[in-house]
């Protein structure tokens, strides 16, 4: 039996935890700084920005206009019920909003951070009761349902709150990613460190943005996430989002064994490692692989420069969604990089031993998680020489 030709496979390297922690502490980027990476990351994030814009609008529309609608069959149409729009939806000439819902469900299910904590408070439940009372007066189905299953409608409101919060988060990220593409086109961003710095600035600038959510039921306005809850962009939504979608995620049918008895999936949710940074790009477009939806959406809005590059590598158009997924993973490492840089407990140039030790511990904790991720996409060996 002949040996498999080496040209059929590519191994991207596998940096260990110490190397990753060292890079974080030395203010180096995780992703190797090469001109190809700049194009990949900037262009993929640009198309992601366009898609996130649509996701964000739809999530906010769903949370506000389809609130407690028992049969939300038109929820993906953003309120446009024209025949042309419905036809385009039916022939699937549309954005796959199902992926946005999938991310929302991951956030809701993993439930970390301030938003989730608030959803379990007395204040939130009191708001829910007021909303349900008002809504039940107009809706006999809900009036029947609520006494029978008391936990059902509050859970739907929690879902709506997470949906709205994710919509607000992606609103900011969408603008940030589109601005990044603009900045690169204008020559303000030229390297991976500059990309990471740009993203970090954007996150820091939006960090304290308040996250609020109100619904109007029968002409009366109710707070679901009131300003006095004090929820903010970075700590209460962005960090839980990164935890749920980038790191933990959920296992996809067909890529991970579902033998629960053998504990091939950890019974401890916090040990989940199925998120975007860990996911295998190769099964993209296989059945039951939700990111395929995102890759398809991004494919429809791919900048010509990156598309042209994809056409001339591996199978050209044939495996373009796998290539988008690989580039996307690189860009997500940049976003994670920016988030870690922005959340170090002390400035990295602070020389005091206490600050250095705290930063070291913080970097080590991240590196311990990331060294098991798909760091092969970082191409550590291709680091551009200074």
């Amino acid at each position, binding site marked *: 039996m002949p040996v498999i030709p080496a040209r059929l496979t590519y191994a991207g390297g596998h940096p260990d935890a110490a190397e990753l922690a060292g890079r974080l502490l030395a203010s180096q980027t995780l992703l190797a700084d090469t001109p190809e990476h700049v194009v990949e990351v900037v262009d993929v994030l640009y198309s992601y920005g366009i898609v996130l814009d649509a996701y964000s609008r739809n999530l906010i529309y769903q949370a506000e206009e389809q609130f407690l609608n028992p049969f939300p069959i038109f929820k993906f149409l953003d309120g446009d019920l024209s025949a042309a729009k419905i036809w385009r939806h039916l022939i699937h000439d549309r954005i796959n909003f199902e992926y946005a819902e999938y991310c929302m469900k991951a956030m809701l299910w993993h439930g970390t951070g301030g938003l989730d904590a608030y959803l379990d408070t007395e204040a939130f439940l009191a708001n829910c009761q007021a909303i349900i009372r008002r809504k039940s007066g107009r809706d006999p189905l809900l009036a029947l349902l609520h006494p029978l299953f008391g936990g059902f409608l509050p859970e739907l409101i929690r879902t709506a709150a997470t949906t709205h919060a994710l919509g607000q988060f992606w609103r900011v990220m969408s603008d940030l990613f589109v601005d990044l593409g603009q900045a690169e086109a204008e020559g303000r961003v030229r390297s991976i460190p500059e990309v990471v710095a740009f993203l970090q600035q954007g996150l820091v600038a939006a960090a304290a943005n308040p996250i609020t959510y109100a619904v109007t039921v029968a002409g009366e306005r109710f707070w679901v996430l009131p300003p006095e809850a004090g929820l903010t962009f970075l700590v209460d939504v962005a960090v839980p989002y990164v935890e749920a979608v980038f790191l933990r995620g959920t296992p996809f049918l067909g890529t991970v064994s579902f033998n629960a008895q053998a504990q091939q999936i950890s019974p401890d949710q916090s040990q989940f490692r199925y998120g975007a940074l860990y996911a295998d790009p190769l099964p*993209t477009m296989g059945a039951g692989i939700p990111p395929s939806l995102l890759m398809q959406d991004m494919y429809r809005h791919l900048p010509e420069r990156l598309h042209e590059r994809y056409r001339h590598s591996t199978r050209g158009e044939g495996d373009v969604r796998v290539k988008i997924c690989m580039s996307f993973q690189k860009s997500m490492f940049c976003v994670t990089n920016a988030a870690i840089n922005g959340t170090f407990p002390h400035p990295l140039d602070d020389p005091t031993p206490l600050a250095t030790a705290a930063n070291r511990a913080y970097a080590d904790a991240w590196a311990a998680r990331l060294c098991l991720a798909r760091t092969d996409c970082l191409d550590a060996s291709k680091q551009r020489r200074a």
Partner: protein
Amino acid sequence: MMLTPLLLIPFLGLVPLLLWPASAPAGRLRAVAISVLALQLLWSLVVLVAFDPADGGLQMVENVTWLPTLGLDYRLGVDGLSLPLLLMNAALTLVSAVCTRDISQRPRIYFALLLLISGAVNGAFLAQNLLLFLIFYELELIPLWLLIAVWGGAERAYAATKFLIFTAASGMLILGAFLALALLTGSLDFSLTPVTSERLAMGSQLVLLGALLVGFGIKIPLVPFHSWLPDAHTQASTPVSVLLAGVLLKLGTYGLLRFGLGLFPEAWAVMAPWLAGWAAVSVLYGSLAAIAQRDMKRMVAYSSVGHMGTILLAAAAATPVSLLGTVFQMVSHGLISALLFLLVGIVYRKTGTRDLEVLRGLLNPERGLPYTGTLMILGVMASAGLPGMAGFISEFLVFRGSISAFPLATLLCMVGSGLTAVYFLLLVNRAFFGRLAVTPPTDPLSDARLDVRPIAVAPREIIPATALALGVVGMGLLPAGLGHISEAATTAISQLPAVMTAIGIRGGLG
């Protein structure tokens, strides 16, 4: 003169190929060979149209006395048994030529040999004289040996020599049986007339039939004469494997029916229970050996041993239904095994390996070979006898026709048929499901991160396999066409033993 063109087209077609200047590009030679083979297929279809299905006897007979002192006549004829095989030969040789790509050395000789084989096989199926049959039977041997020995894999010399020794022995046994028949009956009549016990004692009949059984058993191949086949398949290139499995093995089963059952109906009836037992052993051995293989091509080759064994079972039973089943099984095995060898060839060309311990996840939609995998699943389902495809209808007829005659052997063959699902599910599960990989797993963590980049299968590369897959499904959904062509002939053959007995009784009384 309906049948002679089936010999003239390939034999004359190879002349321009050989006369072409050596500098001619392989693509042009391939085009010439494809045109000749297309013409041959077209003429086979003309014969099909002219064929009268209601007539169970020989049709379009051509008879020219050639060497009367030797008993060699140029006598051709076609019936419902040989016509489907002629069509298969025309179609599968064309498929072989079409799927020949990137041929680097001696393309002139290569395509000329393909045509020579095709013509010889046509001749063997049409010959109605024992010596004429033997000439064609031996004629395809050397070209095939060359095709394996020159254009084969790394171990081709061993495999080709083994093939040559086995099949030469097969030819000698058959020649010996034919000559002994002339010697013992004292006549130089090599025409295909059933031998009665009036002309030859039962003991001599059994010996001659035994020689024919071993001779054709090597070609089919039946256990224990099968060991040349897996080696020949693994070392042969894809088009040659297609020819070998799809057409050349059928010479063995055709010979068994035409000369074993056709010449010695009485002895056949005596030996039938042993033959059924032999068939069951062959089917079970082939299927169990297939389970143990890790080379995809060897697995398909052993499955051939299993499936060809069922033809012996049906021939032993010799009921009208089981003999119709033999024709169906020959055609369906030809289509399915050709399809599977084509697909294994594509996998090998794209990944550089056929090792089931190495290949994984080839159904991956973007980076794998999804369409090839889809056809492979269809092919193995057909081979395992799932309804709606060719394998089901042929195995159903074989088992339905044989179970009343040999219940135990038939049940054992059914187990072998069930084992087909076992080994082909192993094949599909290992090579096509899971995460895409074409490397032996050493480090689970880093192997799970490997970016695998097999080259995509171009649409034109998959056309032959698609055509065969359509044939497999078409025959499964509309089997009546083939049944219509063959039924009269197979019914006539099935009545031979009874007719012979009747003649024998009358002769005894007279």
